[in-house]
């Protein structure tokens, strides 16, 4: 009986060890490459929003988490800071539009310290495919409209969809989604303007695996 059991146990262990050996060695071999890939992919998004950013690695590291659910949709959003030669050129903010048609819309917005939007992208959303999903860059160019638009507290009427009298077109049949996105970006830009201390906060983001 003991024999039988130990035979089983050893067999399974043996297979496990062989498997782990194979995987372990492969892991050692690929680890650096994978880490690099991961970094690259994260940078890719940042770079899309902020094409001018050159040393994006530094940008990734220079990140702080802020709690401003009122302005940025939820707490714990990350703010990356792009500095060149110690001058702060832009912020990259994670922001969330809480009032999408079917839920939250997560965005990444690049804003210059004076409140000009440099770029924006939707990171994730649940809007109706074919209707609300035109906010995706893959589906249409709409989201790029914001680049170069400046936002000040006085601009509130301008920062609206055209149906509400603003300067951003909504798409046919779906006003809610654009409205939500416009508002979110506007709020993010205002947030940057009203919180100059952002530049000074220590980098405290944990690096996502």
């Amino acid at each position, binding site marked *: *009986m003991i024999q039988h*059991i130990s*035979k*089983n*146990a050893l067999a399974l*262990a043996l297979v*496990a060890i062989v*498997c*782990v*050996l194979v995987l372990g060695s492969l892991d050692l071999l690929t680890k650096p490459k994978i880490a690099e890939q991961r970094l690259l992919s994260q940078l890719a998004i940042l770079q899309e929003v902020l094409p001018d950013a050159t040393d994006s690695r530094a940008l990734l590291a220079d990140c702080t988490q802020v709690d401003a659910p009122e302005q940025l949709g939820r707490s714990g959003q990350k703010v990356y800071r792009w500095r060149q030669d110690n001058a702060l050129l832009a912020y990259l903010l994670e922001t969330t539009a809480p009032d999408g048609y079917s839920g939250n819309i997560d965005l990444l917005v690049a804003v210059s310290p004076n409140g000009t939007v440099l770029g924006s992208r939707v990171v994730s959303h649940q809007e109706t495919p074919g209707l609300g999903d035109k906010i995706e860059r893959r589906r249409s160019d709409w989201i790029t409209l914001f680049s170069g638009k400046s936002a000040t507290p006085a601009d509130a009427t301008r920062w609206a969809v055209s149906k509400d009298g603003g300067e951003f077109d909504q798409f046919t049949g779906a006003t809610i989604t654009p409205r939500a996105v416009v508002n979110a970006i506007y709020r993010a830009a205002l947030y940057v303007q009203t919180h100059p201390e952002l530049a000074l906060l220590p980098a405290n983001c944990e690096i996502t695996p």
Partner: protein
Amino acid sequence: MTLMTALLALGILALLFGALLGYSAIRFKVESDPLVEQIDDILPQTQCGQCGYPGCRPYAEAIANGDEINKCPPGGEATIKKLAELMGVEAKPLNAAQEPSIKRVAFIREDECIGCTKCIQACPVDAILGASKLMHTVIADECTGCDLCVEPCPVDCIDMIPVPVTAERWKWDLQAIPVKLVE
């Protein structure tokens, strides 16, 4: 170093699991279940061998060992369906090209029979009775219609005839009632 810890961790885990399964294999041993019996109960017991096995039971054993379930023409779709259910597999269409024909029984034209007993030997269910060198006869009620006796007969005096319809067996097929002319 991490490789070592990995080896150790998973090795030990696997060792434990292996031991657990090995132990429980002994501790929780059960005798095989009577699957063959159940399969055999479903087969029509015609013993005709059309499935490629010498009778229903061998085929039942074969099914239990993983043979296809769609080889028994006398059983037809119904049997396949039941087998599929029992074995937990998808029902398949009948293997053989032809559907099972209408029920038949063997009939020996007795005046032609030379009494060679070949048919008796062929009959899987002892449904033929007779005197050697004399005539033989088929007990229609015990004949399963397998037609195994037809081929061996040296004088071709065995016919497969449709089972006669009686009032009890009659199936309310409106098409089958002749519309007669009455003067």
